[in-house]
């Protein structure tokens, strides 16, 4: 249950609360460039969602088994040449950025070849956007996010494959959502009298600012949801209230409180 609620929270966080475009500002180039018509925007969004999931999956596998400090595969390969205690310290994390960018580039190539061969109809609709995606920062950002949750946290909180994939997929959904909304607005903007200097990227950015303002309203939603999943907040504090005296005070009775006068003066 806790695992499931974690997944739901990650999904909502990636798609709405911390929307990649409107909160992290990644993937702005296609967001401005390919948001003139709704159908094009939708195609771009679908292509990004597709590639971002594949790239995040690959980068999780590579980070977990090869790149993180003390990764099993790196340790095993180093163990063939080096004594065991040195091999255990092998840390390839300095190579992460190079590896990620090549993972992205090759997965884009691979997806393109696969689609052209087996799903020509889909290839036709994706085709234009696929090469563009290589330089889409949203993909690299998702990989880096996954890396942060694998390398940068305590082992108990380390993300597995499923949370990483959820993050990436819903980040793609969030991107699609933002770009489609934007395209819808821009189709209407065509009929408006926009001041000449703002036509094009200028007005798009200002409208995205207003859109970001709207998305700001989602902030804090995950915290309420978390409370809902875990039960009510008062229940938690009540449990703490009960837990503290029973577990701590009878076993270890503290002597006189020497420092309480000091603290009281400090507080006032």
């Amino acid at each position, binding site marked *: 249950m806790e695992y499931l609620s974690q997944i739901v929270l990650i999904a909502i966080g990636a798609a709405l609360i911390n929307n990649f475009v409107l909160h992290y500002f990644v993937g702005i180039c296609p967001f401005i460039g390919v948001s003139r018509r709704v159908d094009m925007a939708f195609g771009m969004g679908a292509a990004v969602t597709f590639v971002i999931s594949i790239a995040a999956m690959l980068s999780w596998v590579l980070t977990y088994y090869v790149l993180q400090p003390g990764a099993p595969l790196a340790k095993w390969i180093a163990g063939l040449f080096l004594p065991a205690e040195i091999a255990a310290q092998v840390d390839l994390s300095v190579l992460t950025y190079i590896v990620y960018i090549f993972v992205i580039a090759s997965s884009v190539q691979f997806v393109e070849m696969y689609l052209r061969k087996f799903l020509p109809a889909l290839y036709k609709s994706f085709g234009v956007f696929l090469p563009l995606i290589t330089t889409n920062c949203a993909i690299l950002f998702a990989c880096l996010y996954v890396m942060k949750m694998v390398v940068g946290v305590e082992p108990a909180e380390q993300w597995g494959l499923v949370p990483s994939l959820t993050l990436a997929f819903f980040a793609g959904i969030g991107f699609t959502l933002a770009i489609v909304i934007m395209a819808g607005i821009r189709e209407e903007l065509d009929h408006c009298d926009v001041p000449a200097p703002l036509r094009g990227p200028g007005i798009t950015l200002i409208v995205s600012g207003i859109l970001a303002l709207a998305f700001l309203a989602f*902030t804090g939603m995950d915290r309420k949801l978390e409370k809902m999943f875990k039960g009510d907040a008062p229940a938690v504090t009540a449990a*703490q209230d009960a837990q503290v005296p029973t577990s701590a005070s009878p076993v270890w009775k503290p002597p006189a409180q020497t420092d309480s006068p000091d603290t009281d003066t*400090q507080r006032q």
Partner: protein
Amino acid sequence: MKNSSLGQAWLVLLLSLAFGAALAGVQVGWGPIIEQNKRNKTYDQIPRLVHDVEAVDLTGKPAKLSGVKEATEEVPYDDGKSVAFKVFWQGKDPAGKVHLGWVIKGKGNGYADVIEVLIGLDRKAERITGMTVLFNNETPGLGNKITTEKFQGQFRGLDAAKPVGCEKSAPAPGANRIQAISGATISSESVCNIVNQAVAGFRAQLPALNKKDH
């Protein structure tokens, strides 16, 4: 065929080797400094978190706590899932390491993102001697006021045995409560919850830790 593909790729291979060597050099040269920086981020806060209560208590006047960073020990607890910092003060006498208190880490969700805090406790973990926010991503101008001394200082001297409460108006003295930042009640409550959870978790483990020492 092999020749021609090698002929095309030799430049890429050569560049890869050169960059690989450069990156290895970077890692060897700067890696230790980066590690040190990460360590310092926590350790720089430690003297501030414990000294207010105890330094006065020990010497009669506010002492300069030199050597605290070096003398502090890291003690794992909760089956190695968490680490507490057992803070010592290395006085003039090299043998006389004085145990000042504990610093523990707390982590939990805030309004916008994760909040990480450090909490200072006295020797018996009965009083909170300080609290500081290590990481936050709260709303600028509202939630991120949890990093101000005005907010953090409220935790100093609170009773660690009872959960710290949080209310909108100024609390009565001795009520074991803090005043929330106006307009950022959720962030303030989050910090309280994080502190309460971390302190309760640590206090539950303290008897076992003390037993290990003796």
